[in-house]
């Protein structure tokens, strides 16, 4: 260890591995993982989000899961929670759509209207 800069670089790298345990996420992505959701491909969607967020180094975004959402016909369902903003619910998601949501909604703050099933205040 030569200096603080080297330590800080190392830390940045190490933080990725414990990111799930830090509590400062601004945006929360919640994937509905009920039986019907899983059957419709929710796990692939969940993992696609996790990987996209990780690859793009989006530190303040948290991906998590929940049970059945009660909109079985439009599974996989994904909710985007952000403080001070209405909750956006996307339906019939797949890994390709995930990429678009991350790029447009998460990174550029533009809701991807074509996938939206509901917006809740």
């Amino acid at each position, binding site marked *: 260890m030569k*200096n603080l800069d080297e330590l800080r670089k190392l830390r940045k790298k*190490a933080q990725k591995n414990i990111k799930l345990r830090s509590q400062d996420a601004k945006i929360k992505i919640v994937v509905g993982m009920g039986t019907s959701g899983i059957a419709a491909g929710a796990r692939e969607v969940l993992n696609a989000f*996790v990987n996209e967020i990780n690859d793009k180094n989006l530190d303040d975004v948290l991906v*998590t899961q*929940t049970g059945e959402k009660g909109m079985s016909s439009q599974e996989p369902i994904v909710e985007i929670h952000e403080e001070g903003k209405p909750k956006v619910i996307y339906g019939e998601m797949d890994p390709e759509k995930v990429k678009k949501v991350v790029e447009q909604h998460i990174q550029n703050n533009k809701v991807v209207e074509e996938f939206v099933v509901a917006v809740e205040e």
Partner: protein
Amino acid sequence: MAQRLNVLVCSGASCLSSGSIDVKDALIEEIENNGLEEEIKIIETGCMGPCELGPVILVYPDEILYKKVKKEDVKDIVEQHFLKGRPVERLLYKSTETEKLIKKHEEIDYFKKQKKIVLRNCGMIDPESIEEYIALDGYEALGKALTEMNKEKVLKEIETSGLRGRGGAGFPTHLKWKFTKDADGDKKYVVCNADEGDPGAFMDRSVIEGDPHTVIEGMAIAAYVIGADMGYIYVRAEYPLAIERLRKAIKDAKEYGFLGENIFESGFNFDLEVRIGAGAFVCGEETALIHSIEGKRGTPRPRPPYPSVEGLWGKPTNLNNVETYANVRHIILKGGNWFSKIGTESSKGTKVFALSGDITNTGLAEVPMGTTIKELIYDIGGGAPEGKTIKAVQLGGPSGGCITHEYFDTPIDYESLTELGAMMGSGGVIAMSEDTCMVNTAKFFLDFNTFESCGKCTPCRVGLKQMYVILDRITKGEGETGDIDRLVELGENIKKTALCGLGQTAPNPVLSTIRYFRNEYRQHIEEKKCQAMVCTDLLTYYIEPDKCKACTLCAQNCPVDVIEGERGVVHEIQQEGCIKCGNCYDVCPFDAVVKTTGEF
């Protein structure tokens, strides 16, 4: 592929003994069965604190805490929660106040009033991963001290913080450092006292098991200030897991260059080794500890000279407790000012306590100084189980004293506890309900101290033994008038004349129970009565003739055959020869056997 869940399995000694390894193995298996191994990471951590709930696992990012997990529960956890996102309700914690299920671990009563500085990483990171420690600002304080601060500046921060020794005596840390720094010597040492030996204390073990690097970093900073290039951590052999994790941590720190030569290219060299003690209580005393590291017999010597002037191999040595060192990096990172705002006027920061005895939530808790005893044992500890009341707590283990419920509103700091005849000690808190006999408790601690006395000085070796003889006869119903005064006189003399801290504090449990529970002593001596029904020699068992159905069960179970009677004939216990084992009392289906105390 990136992970979406971190599953933290508590691998503190308590959870390990309640089966957390089986749970971890079952988790690995079940996760593989469901093809989730790339999505979920399992991390073994140090003690999370709520030992009563063990084995505990904590699932991130949602912070869901599962309690008392058995390997049979793992299938549900993986299938219901990890796969389908539905936490398994039957394994969640239920609030004792509202009866509501609580998912988030921070909302659990046990954690609410705590403030974690020393334990910040414990139960949060993998203690065997230096990378995880680094991710949470690990070794930043050492780097900052070495490259951006001179020794005086570091010392000043410690002084501003008001940090005092967490081993029990509460000596200002900056003074100890300054004395060692200013002492003349071509070679100096830093030593960490991890010889935690009091019954009911497991704070230091938990810190080392859960976050070993925090101790190493604190020691390295101390070494820089005082000018030492070698350090030793003295751990008792009864802590094998702590030793293993420390050794791994030291090895990793060397590989990364946080220990060794020219650390952070500052010219500072520091090496660290673990020394294992054989478990003698007296080796927690600093001069005895130093002798033990030197390979000599672990006995104390008179002070002065203090170790800061003449310590290990005659060289100036700074000796602090585990928890003291664990605070250092936080003070350097956030500043002495920040630290000094936590706590009371005279006692700054937090203190880690190990809760045990008659208390619902046994475990580890860190609270700001100034928290009342009541908050600690009721709000965090959950009070006594089964609706009993806590009549006193023993603070400071066998060197400390008891505090009765009238004083539970006392804020915890060094001075107020000493005033009450107890002491901060290293942080063991043993709760005692109305079922506890204070005379017997005092005898237990005195027995411990008498056994652990090294025998070097007469007051401790002979005096404690004599106190024990008196206490022993009191609990056997052979107490004599004047025994209480004899105990007080002896105790006061031992305190004044014993050579080291062990002898000087050993009479405390007796003196403080006499101070607050003199009446219990009197009852034992004058009425041959033990209210708590603990001292067996003061108990009497007899059979109520009206209730006896002459079933012969008691007679069959009497190991000394002193119960007379046969089928159809009411039974009677012959008092002479009765060993008061209580078998008859336990087996009688009609509650005809009565247990009583006092003269029969």
